[in-house]
């Protein structure tokens, strides 16, 4: 027991020495290469945590009743089984992509097939499908018109070369 405690203390000491050595290196180098100002503190760390975050994962956590972090959120539950403050609304059970056979396969995206009774006119050889760009617009099926009224966000956007 004492040995393992000593070993742990030794590791800790090494860790501290490592950080101190690194800090020393950083400090020395800072004179020659002034580092950018570190907008440190909890706010900067919290800001950085959102970079590249998975919004779908956040929503799943919220759906499982996980609290939001941060000031002012201490009393927030997305789903409260006790009824009081229950935010669950009609239609919520449809949330996890159970329409039209869609499934995100755990990859965080949900594609929806075109609304066509004929299915895709294309067959997929192994390893992928292929057609000519000039023919794509005519060979791929067209969606049926008709979307529900009063959409919350525009129902169309573009991805283009960048």
């Amino acid at each position, binding site marked *: 027991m004492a040995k393992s405690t000593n070993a742990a203390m030794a590791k800790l000491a090494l860790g501290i020495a490592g950080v101190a050595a690194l800090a020393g*290196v*950083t400090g020395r*180098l800072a004179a020659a*290469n002034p*580092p*950018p*100002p*570190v*907008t440190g503190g909890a706010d*900067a760390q919290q800001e*950085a945590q*959102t*970079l*590249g*975050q*998975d*919004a779908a994962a*956040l*929503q799943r956590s919220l759906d499982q009743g996980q609290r939001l972090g941060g000031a*002012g959120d201490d009393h*927030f539950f997305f789903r409260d089984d006790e009824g009081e403050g229950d935010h669950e609304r009609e*239609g919520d059970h449809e*949330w996890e*992509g159970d*329409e039209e056979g*869609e499934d*995100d396969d755990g*990859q*965080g*995206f*949900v*594609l*929806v*097939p*075109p609304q*066509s009774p004929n299915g*895709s006119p294309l067959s997929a050889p192994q*390893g*992928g*499908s*292929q057609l*000519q*760009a000039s023919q*794509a*617009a005519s060979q*791929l099926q*067209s*969606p049926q018109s008709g*979307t*529900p009224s009063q959409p919350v*966000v*525009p*129902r*169309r*956007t*573009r*991805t*283009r*070369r*960048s």
Partner: protein
Amino acid sequence: MNTLVEITGAEVDLEPWFRRVESVLTRFDPTSPLSQLNRAGGSWVLVPPLLYRAVAAALEAARETGGAYDPTVLEALEAAGYSRSFELGPQAQGLARPAGRWFAITLEPRLGAIQLPPGVRLDLGGIGKGLAVDGAAWRATREAARQGRRPSYVINAGGDLAVQTAAGEPPVQVDIDDPFHPDRGLASLRLRRGAVATSSTLGRRWGEGLHHIIDPRTGRPADSGIIAATVVAGRVSQAETLAKACIVMGDERGMRLLKSKGCQGLLVTGDGSVLFTPGLEDYLHAAV
């Protein structure tokens, strides 16, 4: 960022977030934290948390793609003539400089410090845009939760976009531009939630065979036969780096990469052929 960001449905002001990310990750401002880090090759540098996280994400993307996506291509990019913001025009070319030294970058998470190897400089342009959109989507989701409602938004930064619809809403149609004729649509997808990104060698181009997607192996603009790639993924940053990797890798390896990551994609070759992952077949339709 030199990019038009279109945001709809997000009930939170995301402009400060995009401006903040740009100010940290731009390579065109010599005073930005990224530029300062790039000038300090060989030294440990304390960096803002945003930059630390972006570099960590870029290195993870490099690992995921076997180095086909490589944030250390800046020397090669500048040697190819892309040394200042694109609208200012290309500069003189230098010798091709192979990249591939991303694995030699060292991160110190306890201090938030980064050490680039001497001579290595980073370009976080594409992944930075993707990371910014991911972060914006996360913020929009959090704000919606705070308001007790389901998130519903489209956040589109120059064609790299995140979509989220609420229950009962129709999906969002994402039109994929024809890379040869940007005024025309090539195909469309309907997305209930997720991310889409497109990269192309025809976009930022300043001469025959000169574009901004560098093959890290040669240090020259990629010439794999793929001229555009559109990827559907869970996060925009992942879609963006996978799209770039596909253009570097070519059709066969690119398709295998997408399959291994569980993502869907559409690749356009230089002769106009369109290849797409089998899982996308039932979801593509004509852009109308």
